């Protein structure tokens, strides 16, 4: 009799643990599904579009150069820096930490943009 009780309690515990894990997994999955994780910024006509953008932490931003002149994407605080991007080349960066990230094109410094992560 005692053995049976022990087995039942263990089984109950395992089921409970498993359920919690599944629920937790589902919640995380749902969260990931509801927020877009990759955002595109287009570089064209000597400008970043959109110039100001707000994203959630964990978002990856991909800049693609559609201009007929090369450009770069460089954080003013040294957080990220692309190599030179010719037409149709891209650069990506994932923003994990909340904050404001101003950036510019180091070749044409009048081109500026901002990423806000919150």
């Amino acid at each position, binding site marked *: 009799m005692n053995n049976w009780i022990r087995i039942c309690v263990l089984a109950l515990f395992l089921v409970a643990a498993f359920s919690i894990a599944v629920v937790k997994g589902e919640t995380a999955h749902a969260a990931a599904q509801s927020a877009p994780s990759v955002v595109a910024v287009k570089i064209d*006509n*000597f400008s970043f579009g959109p110039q100001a953008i707000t994203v959630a932490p964990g978002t990856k931003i991909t800049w693609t150069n559609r201009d007929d002149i*090369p450009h770069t994407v460089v954080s003013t605080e040294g957080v990220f820096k692309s*190599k030179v991007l010719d037409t149709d080349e891209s650069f990506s960066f994932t923003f994990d930490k909340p904050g404001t990230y101003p950036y510019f094109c180091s070749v*044409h*410094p009048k081109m500026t943009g901002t990423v806000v992560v919150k």
Partner: protein
Amino acid sequence: MSKEKKDELLIDHNRDGIDRRGFLKCMAWAGTGTLCVMQGGVLKSFSLSRLSELDPAAAAGELRFVQVSDSHMGFNKPANQDVAGTLKAAVDKINSLPSAPEFLLHTGDISHLSKPEEFDAVDQILKSTGKETIFVPGEHDVLNDDGQQFRERYGKGSAGAGWRSFDKNGVHFIGLVNVMNLKAGGLGTLGAEQLEWLEKDVKSRAKSTPIVVFAHIPLWSVYPEWGWGTDDATQALAYLKSFGSVTVLNGHIHQIMQKVEGNVTFHTAASTAFPQPAPGTADSPGPMKVPAEQLRKVLGITDVQFLRGKNALAVVDSSLA
């Protein structure tokens, strides 16, 4: 390539009849062998025949050199798909000048993407002038490596990021670098170290010494909205204030412009690769497509002559067609 009507726009982004990738409506640039002067936004041109009034036969100490600029070797978009060909045409032009230049100045954007093969190609093409070329970098020449390759190739005799001075026939030449460490939202920049060097370089020179300054980005505010200016140029020009004759030669804007301010004459050169729109006439300063038969008319070289006894250098722009 499809046949397009002369005034047809290729892409009218703003529906305003003006587009830098479309055709230029009014071409005021004149043809071969013309002196082009932009005054207050109005282009004035003088044919070569009038330059005999400048007394070219004058005196000893005559010095002649040619400025080329913005060859953008490696560029291959619609505005010009053969930049090597147009640079070769510029060299042909140089080789056919009535009196050979002593040397060449290249005011930057030698390459388009700072690639070794691009620099190699330009060197190869310019070699056929048989003359020495002295270079200052454009922002396209210092990509990815903080200008290290530029200095390795062209930096002999220079200091810092590649600035230098030298004398030829009594004229003092100063090559400046204003494309390094550009700050967000800013224009071209010379920086404290270079300005200090410049001050020392000119301090003890006779004020009657003619000075030629050459740098990539214009040293006057042509159009700050498009980055066409240098943040700390005023400081540099202050060091040259008391010299009787100062000529500033720049590139970067891919069109000919001239401004006179007291003893200083500013002149920008055409590109040998592609033209760019006049300030404010397009939504951005990118390559401007023109009808194929007109391309060589908006590209060119600048022939500069120093005549002893004259304050200003004679600057003559020639288009490639």
